Each structure stands twice: as C-alpha cells, then as structure tokens.
C-alpha cells in the first residue's frame, strides 16, 4: 500500500500541488487523472522522490520515503517499477539489455538466471524474439511494452505508469491498459497510473483520484465517475463528445 499525506509543491511561487493526500491499495490499479498542467506528473515525481515536496510525505507500506539518505531508500527503490511517458529506454542498449539492466545493477543473479527472467518478461508483454533489436528499431507501442517489461523485471511491489497511452493509437492504448491491469492482478502489485485518457479511466480504474489546479477534488472509481456532480470533473469527463452524447441519451 502507498499512502501520500498532505503533499504540497510549488515552483517559482506557483502552487503545483496543494495538500494532496490519498491511499493506493495493493492489487488495485489506481488512476490519477486531470487535465494537462494540473500536477499529475509532479505528484508522481514527488512519490518517486525525483522532486522533493515542500510539505507532506509518501509512505510505502508504512515506510517514510523521505527519511534517510539514498542508501536507506535503496530497498524501497528496488521494490519499484516505473514506466515513463516516452519509455525512457537506454538508446545505446538493445531491448534485452534494457530489460536486464536493473538485474545487472541491483542483483547478484547469474547470467543464465538473468536471461531466463528477461525472456519471461518479454514473453509476458508479448514481445518474444525482439530482444536483439535497438529501441530506435521498434514502434512506440513496443517501446511502452519494453518499458513495462523493464519495470516488472525486478518483481516490483509498486508499479508507476506515467501517461502509458500518450502517443499511441486507440487500439494499442487499450492493449497497454489491459496489460497493466493483468500484471497488477497477476502479481498483486500496487499500481499507480497517471493519465488523462478516458478509455483508461473507464476500463481499468479500480480507484480514481481527480486533480484540478493542484488540488484533489474528487475520489472514486470507474463506476462512480460518470454519475458524480463535481463541475470540474464533469467538464473533464464530458468534454469527450461520445460520452457527452451518451449522457444526453442519444
């Protein structure tokens, strides 16, 4: 379980996150949604301690992530997997080497064991036989899959996905969403997804947190989001024409 408590962060006197709190449970796919510039990615960076908030804390199964130095945090970091918006694959390494990288750096596993683990992860994300390719030789959707494979190679307890659908066609987006959901259920991971994609919201949101201008305005799930009456949330959800027509009963 991940618990964020009263996170606040500002840049140049502009409040980006204002006292945001929430709980993300084990085995659930939790979504943080909101329009662009509402602080979703900053919240994720605060949770990963890539950006240190001015106030508040993040607890990983009760362990305060902001206490102690980087050596102390290593144990928690080893339990994390992160899928970055663009995949963040290392350009100079092959797909196989990218996935194996955390194993090389953070474990004492033998070469055979590492190879097996990488093959398992590649197979799990549906990319068997692509290990020898370079990141520049694969499509955007495949990069996301490789990013997911690298994120899960260490058997993480916590999985973070920053806009996993950005730049993808609707069909590939749905497949990536399904993959994230399946992996979360299969490995009982605490998954946090940052998104503004309504397809994701409606299909994989076990829990949804809505941010608006740096504040948490609403919390619920994919069943309750359509019926709620928070004006900012309504505006966000029903700016989609199809959903708007659906609500109007046409």
């Amino acid at each position: 379980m991940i618990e964020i408590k009263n996170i606040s962060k500002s840049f140049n006197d502009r409040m980006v996150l204002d006292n945001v709190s929430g709980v993300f449970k084990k085995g659930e796919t939790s979504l943080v949604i909101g329009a662009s510039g509402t602080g979703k990615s900053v919240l994720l960076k605060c949770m990963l301690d890539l950006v240190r908030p001015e106030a508040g804390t993040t607890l990983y199964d009760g362990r305060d992530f902001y206490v102690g130095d980087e050596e102390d945090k290593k144990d928690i970091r080893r339990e994390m997997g992160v899928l970055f918006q663009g995949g963040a694959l290392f350009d100079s390494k092959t797909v196989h080497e990218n996935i194996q990288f955390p194993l090389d750096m953070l474990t004492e596993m033998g070469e055979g064991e590492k190879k097996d683990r990488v093959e398992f992860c590649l197979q799990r994300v549906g990319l068997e036989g692509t290990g020898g390719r370079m990141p520049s030789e694969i499509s955007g959707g495949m990069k996301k899959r490789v990013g997911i494979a690298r994120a899960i190679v260490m058997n993480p307890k916590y999985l973070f996905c920053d806009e996993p659908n950005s730049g993808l066609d609707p069909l590939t987006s749905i497949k990536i969403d399904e993959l994230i959901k399946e992996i979360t259920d299969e490995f009982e991971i605490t998954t946090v997804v940052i998104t503004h994609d309504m397809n994701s919201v409606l299909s994989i949101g076990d829990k949804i947190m809505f941010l608006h201008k740096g504040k948490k305005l609403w919390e619920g799930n994919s069943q309750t989001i359509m019926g709620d009456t928070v004006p900012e949330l309504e505006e966000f959800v029903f700016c989609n024409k199809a959903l708007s027509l659906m609500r109007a009963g046409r």
Partner: protein
Amino acid sequence: MLSVIGRYLIFLGKLFTRRESLKVYWKRFIDECIGIGVSSVFIVAIVAVFIGAVVCVQTRANLVSPVIPVYVVSNIVRDMTLLELSSTFMCVVLAGKVGSNIAGELGTMKITEQIDALEVMGINSASYLVLPKLLAAVFTFPLLAIISGFLGIFGGYLAGTLSGIITPEDYIYGIRYSFIPFNVFISIIKAIVFGFLISTISAFQGYDTRGGALEVGQASTSAVTNSCIAVLIADYLLAELLT
C-alpha cells in the same frame, strides 16, 4: 554566475559519492576510452601534422636574417608543439568534438527521462554516466597529446624537407638542440587538466539540461564555449605555475 559555479561544484561532488561497483565502471571506462580517445586519433593526427607544417613554413618565412641559423626553425616547431599546440590547441579542438558529444548525449538522456529512470532504480546517475567519461578523458587526453606532439614535429619535418626550406640534418639537429625534457611533462600535465575540465564542464551542461531539443543544442554550444574558456584560463595559470 556564482550559482552556476556552485551547482558545478555540487555536481562534481556527486560524481564521487554512492559509486557503483568497479566492475560496472571498468566496462564503461573502456567504452568511453574508445569513444573519447580512439575515435579522436584521426582528427588529432590531421590537426597536428598540418599545424606542425604551417608553423615550420611560417617560422622559416619570418626568419630571413642570415645571422640566425636555420635549425632554429625546428627548434621553434618543437617548443611550440610541445608547450602549446599538442596540448592547448588539441584540447580546444577536442572541446568541440568530445565536449559537444558529451553534452548532447547527456542532455538527450535528461529530456527523455533516461536519467530519471536510473535515479528511480537507486543508481547515482551522475556517477554512473559521468565518472567513466571523466576517467577516460583524463587517461586518453595525455596519450593524444603525446601523439599530437610527435605528429606536429613530424608534420614540420615533412613540410620543411619536402619544400626544401630546411635540410633533414638541420631539422633533426634543431629538435635535439637545448631540449628540455620537462616540456613533455608540462604537455602531459596540461592535457590531464584540460581533459578534466572539458569532460566535467560538458557533462554538467548536458546533465543540467531542461526542456527539449532546442535546449540540448544550447547545452552543446555552451559546453564547447565554456570548455574552451576554461581551457584557456587554465592554460595561462599552468604556464605561470610550471614555467
């Protein structure tokens, strides 16, 4: 300005804290030696041979007095090459080649979140990415300076003897005449200092990049400019200190 220098010093400190295992650095060090050192041999050789040749021809053209012996030409070529051309001039050229490469690579890694990916794994990205580059530069720049020094003098020999402005015997005599071995040591010391400055300043510019492709380009330009300025200032200070 002071804040940039402060951030640069903090960045240098980060290179030596929370290091990874030696095994990790060894492989990256070898890769960087190839990228920074071996791949620069060609440009260094070309520059050194031609600069040596030009110095020889220009010196002879301007030393027309009959009271000055002709072997002074190679004497000047030798001292200029060892004291300035093989270290300072070569490093200004390398600031362009190596510096822009380092800044561009790290800048791109920064804006595509590859550095963040390393950080969330608990890896000290500055140390992992930059320390091997720094060590490779400090190791290979003196070797390049030695190659450059040799080829600069050889370039002068070729130009001088092929154009007939100096005989091979006079050229060799001039090179041996009143030779100070310490000048070779000065060249190596300079190359080590310049290697450190170019690799760390360029890495800092790349690592500090924020934004997109435009900022990566700006970081590369700043890396070359700032490295050249630092090399020239250090050159003056070392000249005061060592001669």
